[in-house]
């Protein structure tokens, strides 16, 4: 679905993309992570035909993003990091405008608008002005608008920014459902837990280049290794000693009362480890077996924020 090769994009002396290559197969839900300025938004903008690369090629379903931009736009739904909506339009008017902008004609137009209103749960607010909607509802409206023309690829740049936890859960559910319908997705996000929850693959990007890949983070709980982050109350020395001496456990990192370990054997061994720690009198206040992506991110980009 996405075939980007050796993409280069410069902004003055800055190389936002420096020979990036990325392939996404149809039906995949791929997460894009990296520090600020890594080139994630630039990559998504190139794929959405907003920005032209200085070198390299990118194609969506075989259509070049520069040479066949119109064909690409018909296939792609793009959601920017700050989704802008016309605040002085009614919800239905806004959807009708974009239906026209995507040249939906005849019975397709009202069907698409009504379908989008229903999908976004905004059917009863169709005549409400956009400015009167909450942030969560605006996000839903923007997604509905993005899906209006039936795109086969969704490019989402920080879709969960500013959403409250409930809205984030709802967003994850929606994205999973859309992916289940066969829509391919590339999602850039700093919220690793969200990506870990829904993505089939996560790509790390730094300095405009691919910095690594992590296949199926959600599935990393399966046999192999599982990274767990443990936090204990008070003195962590006892817990540290127990963990070091335990077979099948490797201490990856220790910072104060937080210990990151890699447990071979998967979720069952992790559960046994937690049971033994508690039985040994360690006051475990957090045992997070899904810190895998965070750990990989830390390994890829270092522990300090950029």
């Amino acid at each position, binding site marked *: 679905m996405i075939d980007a090769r050796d993409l280069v994009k410069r902004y003055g002396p800055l190389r936002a993309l420096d020979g990036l290559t990325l392939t996404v197969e149809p039906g995949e839900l791929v997460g894009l992570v990296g520090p600020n300025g890594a080139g994630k938004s630039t990559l998504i*903008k190139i794929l959405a035909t907003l920005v032209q690369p200085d070198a390299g090629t990118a194609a969506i379903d075989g259509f070049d993003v520069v040479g066949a931009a119109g064909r690409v736009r018909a296939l792609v739904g*793009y959601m920017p990091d700050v989704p*802008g909506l016309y605040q*002085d339009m009614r919800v239905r*008017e806004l959807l009708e405008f974009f239906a*026209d902008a995507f040249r939906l004609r005849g019975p397709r137009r009202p069907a698409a608008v009504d379908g989008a209103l229903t999908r976004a749960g905004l059917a009863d607010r169709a005549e409400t002005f956009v400015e009167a909607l909450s942030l969560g509802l605006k996000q839903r409206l923007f997604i509905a608008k993005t899906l209006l*023309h039936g795109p086969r690829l969704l490019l989402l740049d920080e879709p969960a920014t500013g959403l409250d936890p409930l809205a984030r859960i709802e967003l994850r559910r929606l994205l999973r459902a859309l992916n289940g319908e066969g829509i391919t997705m590339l999602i850039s996000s700093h919220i690793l837990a969200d990506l870990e929850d829904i993505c089939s693959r996560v790509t790390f990007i730094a300095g405009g280049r691919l910095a690594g890949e992590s296949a199926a983070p959600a599935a990393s709980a399966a046999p192999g290794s599982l990274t767990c982050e443990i936090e204990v109350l008070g003195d962590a020395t006892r817990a540290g000693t127990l963990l070091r001496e335990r077979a099948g456990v490797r201490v990856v990192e220790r910072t104060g009362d937080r210990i990151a370990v890699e447990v071979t054997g998967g979720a069952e061994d992790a559960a046994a480890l937690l049971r033994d720690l508690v039985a040994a009198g360690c006051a475990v206040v957090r045992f997070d077996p899904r810190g895998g992506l965070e750990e990989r991110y830390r390994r890829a980009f270092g522990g300090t924020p950029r």
Partner: protein
Amino acid sequence: MNPMIRKEVRQRMRERRAWLLPTLYLLVLGAVVIVFYMTATARRGAFEVAVQGSVLGQGIFLAVVYAQLSLLLLVAPVFSAGALTIEKEQRTLAGLLTSLLTPADIWWGKLAAALLYQALLLASGLPVLALTLAFGGVGPREIAIALASTAVVMASVSAAGLYFSCFFRRSVHATSVTYAFIVALTVVPLVAYTMLTATVARNPSEPAWLLYSMAPNPFYALSVGLFGAAERVGPWLASLAFFGVLFVTAAALSVRNIARGGEHA
């Protein structure tokens, strides 16, 4: 119909200024007529000379068309120079650029909406202009020429404002530069004409080409075709041609800029 035009007109007519501006516009035009009429008829009393109806009609007509153009030049940047920058400021430009609308569709939608509003103002001023018919000296020909000249000037100035709107990221910058551009169009030809006239003052008659130096002045474009002799047709057409070229250039640059505008979206 271009969906941009429908959207723009709908949004524009929802603004408070949509009805406020025509009201103010008509009040100012009405005031111009009253002040001019009072002044002209008061002069008659002082010198005991009857003012010919046709002279009064032509005077009021000129005052109204000048006032009309001044008001439109004041209003045009508000709509045209903010047209694209508002999309950048509200972060809605990306939505347009990733739709199937072409850069030309977006440009035309924005320009047409700005021009339609100015046409509404022009149309609302027609009854005031038609008042002058009652005095004589002004016929439908003059009204048609004045309206055509005003329309050409406003289309070009709006196209230029729209170009600045494509170029800048902030409405305040685009609007300021558009006003500066209008002032330059008005003042520079006037200064050039004055200097050239002074240079060739020794000549017994003013060379015809001197008039062409005033071609870029919007007020000259409006008035040179009115009540004029045959020799003024050339400068009038030259003026309209100048604004035509300005329109086409601004349009081409704007469409190119919109096509490349994704980096600021």
